């Protein structure tokens, strides 16, 4: 190691340097912790506002936990308000399922192509193009689904309803493709070259190598990508609000209109009386949504960890 410049070695200089370093470290730490604090504050706020459902007798008279499951309809503004979770949960499930079934194969196979088959020039085009898709505002995707996709879909399916879970799910799928693609592509690219070389040396074709060697080796990363896409699809609001029709119908058909948890909160929170049972119920929905996406993200984190350990061990 070359000797330090003598000027840097003076005591005063060392001290000012230490102070500066400590200041910068402190600042960065504050930034990191303010993000964590923000998350905690949001969590506390959402759960606190939902609490009257469990503790306040006046709220419980109109909205209580048992009622979420025994009620038959979602009719919050009514002479007899009813808050059934079933139509909202089935609506969310239908839309998210369609989105994932549509987006996962496309995103994973596109990632496989970009990382294993595409010449580097082509990859330089595909990757940014798909990443730009992530930058398309969801309201634009929602508008496209509302105006164009819905008409086209109705022409194909002849379903009575123009706006449906299928329509919203497909638009949502377009929205989550970039999330899944980006994570998958990174995971595939981080598979060591030696794996592929070994496979090819044994006489496997490029497709056999990609499908049976590279993809399984990156499976944890692919799993993480799919889960992150799932979390985004569950929480996404604007596309669904515009494209699903928002009717709280409890059915298994994806051709029916659907009301999702996120769209329901967005649509109703605007004018609800603060502190009313309806208000508490909407925050309860928020807490449910928060918990679902949180668990999915934790699971995705687990997959990423596994991938890291796997590749480190290789």
């Amino acid at each position, binding site marked *: 190691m070359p000797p330090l410049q003598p000027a840097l070695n003076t005591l005063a200089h060392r001290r000012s340097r230490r102070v500066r370093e400590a200041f910068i470290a402190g600042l960065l730490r*504050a930034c990191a912790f303010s993000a964590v604090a923000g998350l905690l504050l949001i969590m506390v706020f959402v759960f606190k506002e939902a609490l009257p459902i469990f503790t306040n007798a006046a709220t419980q008279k109109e909205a209580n936990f048992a009622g979420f499951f025994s009620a038959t309809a979602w009719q919050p503004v009514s002479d007899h308000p009813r808050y059934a979770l079933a139509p909202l949960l089935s609506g969310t499930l239908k839309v998210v399922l369609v989105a994932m079934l549509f987006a996962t194969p496309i995103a994973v196979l596109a990632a496989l192509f970009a990382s294993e088959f595409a010449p580097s020039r082509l990859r330089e085009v595909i990757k940014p193009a798909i990443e730009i898709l992530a930058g398309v505002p969801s309201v634009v995707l929602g508008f496209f689904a509302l105006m164009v996709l819905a008409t086209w879909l109705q022409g194909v399916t002849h379903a009575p309803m123009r706006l449906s879970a299928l329509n919203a799910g497909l638009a949502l799928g377009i929205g989550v493709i970039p999330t899944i693609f980006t994570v998958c592509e990174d995971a595939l690219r981080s598979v060591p070259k030696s794996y592929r070389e070994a496979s090819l040396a044994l006489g496997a074709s490029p497709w056999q190598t990609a499908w049976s060697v590279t993809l399984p080796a990156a499976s944890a990363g692919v799993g993480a990508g799919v889960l992150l896409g799932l979390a985004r699809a569950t929480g996404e609001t604007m596309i669904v609000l515009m494209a699903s029709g928002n009717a709280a119908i409890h059915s298994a058909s994806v051709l029916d*209109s659907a009301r999702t948890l996120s769209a329901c909160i967005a*649509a109703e929170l605007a004018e609800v009386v603060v502190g009313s049972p309806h208000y508490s119920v909407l925050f309860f929905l928020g807490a449910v949504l928060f918990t679902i996406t949180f668990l999915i993200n934790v699971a995705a984190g687990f997959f990423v960890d596994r991938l890291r350990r796997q590749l480190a061990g290789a």
Partner: protein
Amino acid sequence: MIARIRMLGLLAATLSLAACSPAPVESRGITLKGSDTMVILGQRWAEQYMNQNPGQVIQVTGGGSGTGIAALINGTTDICQSSRPMKPDEKLKLRDRYQSTGIEIPVAKDGLSVYLNEGNPVKELSIEQLKAIYTGKVTNWKQVGGKDATIILYGRENSSGTYGFFKDNVLDGQDFAASCQTLPGTAAVVNAVAKDANGIGYGGAAYTKGVRDCAVKKNAGAPAVMPGAATVKDGSYPLSRFLFFYLRRKPEGDTKKFVDWVLSPAGQQLAVQVGYFPLH
């Protein structure tokens, strides 16, 4: 350890900064807040009034009639625009704070239109039929004289004043059918019905474009009436309503001048241009 304490101090400072909400700013202008139906109308009034009276500042925001009334009660708006009358419990809240149940000023009339797709052979519906359609008792157009096709219901979100008006005046307070699709904004409803041959929707008369208005009968035997300036004004069209300004107390000074201007022929003429109907 020291670093940690310092960091916590910084964090606490950030949090306390975030915690103190901005102090209410003394506004020198007039603020209007409330009904989404009335936002465009309020903005036109404000623009024209500010043009004619330089130096006056009028701010108009929407959010819904309920939001506007809440803002009036909380003191964050001068004038509340509402497409429905104030409810008794809202008046009580206002009285608790200001010893007055507020001033109600009708500023225009609005006819709520029922929209049908242009290709729909059905031309008229009675209130009774509309109620049966929107509560889900009638589900096929042929039950009301149309072709054999499922009726597709469109409506507004339950946070909208239009939703409340329709529910109170057409459904008699009963609940909408679960299959009623709710869309954000009257324009979205109009658009959906324009694209849906079997759709039906409702909303302010101001927005009617690309769809056909349905003539409405008060009851099965009554004549069918189309929404229009004359029928809304004289009340023969069954789905008409007043649009209101609400204030905490009698308007004075600049506020009074503005309200007077809104009620003047010039202000009323502007309401007609936007698509509403004058008071007189």
